């Protein structure tokens, strides 16, 4: 058929072939890139779209200094309700918070992890600080007092109640969600217990970026 016409690479790669092919590759790459930029991030927890600012709680931190949620405007806040005598759920969740901060690397400077005690009668600011320093000194422990703890917990969908197993010994049953508040002070994501740190860190990065 083409016996008198040897195969030529230059002929094969004529603009007639190359341009549409290259155009297709570039076009597909553009679509994939644009899609990944415009595609909504899939959050590991439940995303909220509340137009109201998150409840502006107040509590006493190390050395009795008073902190409000609004003090952290400009930073993302990872909030958890727990207590120092908590046998299992709190240490696990605090480890998750610690690992999340580790995974964020330099961006962890833009994040404040906070634990509000659900046992404010026992968990003095000093006790909280000593306990949290043992796990991760970057997590701020707050004693919000009885009334404010009840208010804050209710507003953040957290239930807690003391359950006595002896005359003086008790545990505090409590909701173990982690709450992500964005740098503008809006509650954005709620994570159920045992959400992994990598997934939370990815969400925090997204929130900080957008």
């Amino acid at each position: 058929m083409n016996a008198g016409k040897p195969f030529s690479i230059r002929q094969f790669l004529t603009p007639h072939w190359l341009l549409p092919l290259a155009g297709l590759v570039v076009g597909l790459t553009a679509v994939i890139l644009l899609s990944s930029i415009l595609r909504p991030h899939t959050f590991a927890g439940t995303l909220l779209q509340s137009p109201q600012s998150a409840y502006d709680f107040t509590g006493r931190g190390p050395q009795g200094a008073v902190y409000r949620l609004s003090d952290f405007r400009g930073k993302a806040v990872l909030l958890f309700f727990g207590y120092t005598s908590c046998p299992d759920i709190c240490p696990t969740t605090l480890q998750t918070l610690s690992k999340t901060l580790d995974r964020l690397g330099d961006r962890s400077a833009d994040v404040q992890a906070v634990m509000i005690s659900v046992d404010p009668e026992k968990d003095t600011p000093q006790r909280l600080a000593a306990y949290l320093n043992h796990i991760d000194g970057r997590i701020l422990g707050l004693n919000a007092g009885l009334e404010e703890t009840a208010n804050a917990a209710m507003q953040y969908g957290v239930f807690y109640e003391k359950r006595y197993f002896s005359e003086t010994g008790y545990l505090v049953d409590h909701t173990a969600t982690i709450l992500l508040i964005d740098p503008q002070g809006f509650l954005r994501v709620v994570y159920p217990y045992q959400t992994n740190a990598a997934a939370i860190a990815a969400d925090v990065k997204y929130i900080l970026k957008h």
Partner: protein
Amino acid sequence: MKWGRLLQVFYIAGGLLVISILWFTTARPIVVLPRMRLSPGYGLQDASNSLVTSDQQRGLLTLYSFAYTRCGDDCRSMYAALQEIDAALADQPTRQPRLQFITITVDPARDTPEALAAFALPFDPKTVQWRWLTGPQERVNAVASGGFEVLVQPRQDGSLFFTPLLVLVDGAGVVRASFEGSQIDSQNILSQLALLYKEIERSQGANRLAYEAAHFFACYP
């Protein structure tokens, strides 16, 4: 010339993407109920004096309402709406998660667990479990007024004035719809409930992304 062609393809691809996003946001092939806010955390007592907590409602759909056992005319239309919803759901017994009604009393001083146990429900629900909750006055006030934002005021005749309100909360404890006053209409509530069921049933696997996009682009009814 070569670059001109490449740019042409790039523009077409980008244009198609923008058109598809515009189509998604205007034609709204998927409509979702907004994730409005977190439902308040609580621990209250039911008629058998057992502790009922917000955590126990995870995984269920809950329609919260607010009333008191002595409530007469003020509650009649709300009870009628609940009865119609219950009757309509009798035709869809396999829908999961199941819907439950929780009524939080706005008169906890009188509506003790004992009083709730003696109280005959305004109608006998066919499919929906209906519980009334009470507790210490301060705690109930905090949940009803502070959490669900129900305004309650005593009238001179001993009855209570309060905002009729129904709040639909999903299995994650997120408020997905609230119905106040004239919005308390069983057809309206059932149509929003149907949207929520549709989302729960369909937002699995790859479809989840499309549903998240619907939330992202606020494709609300």
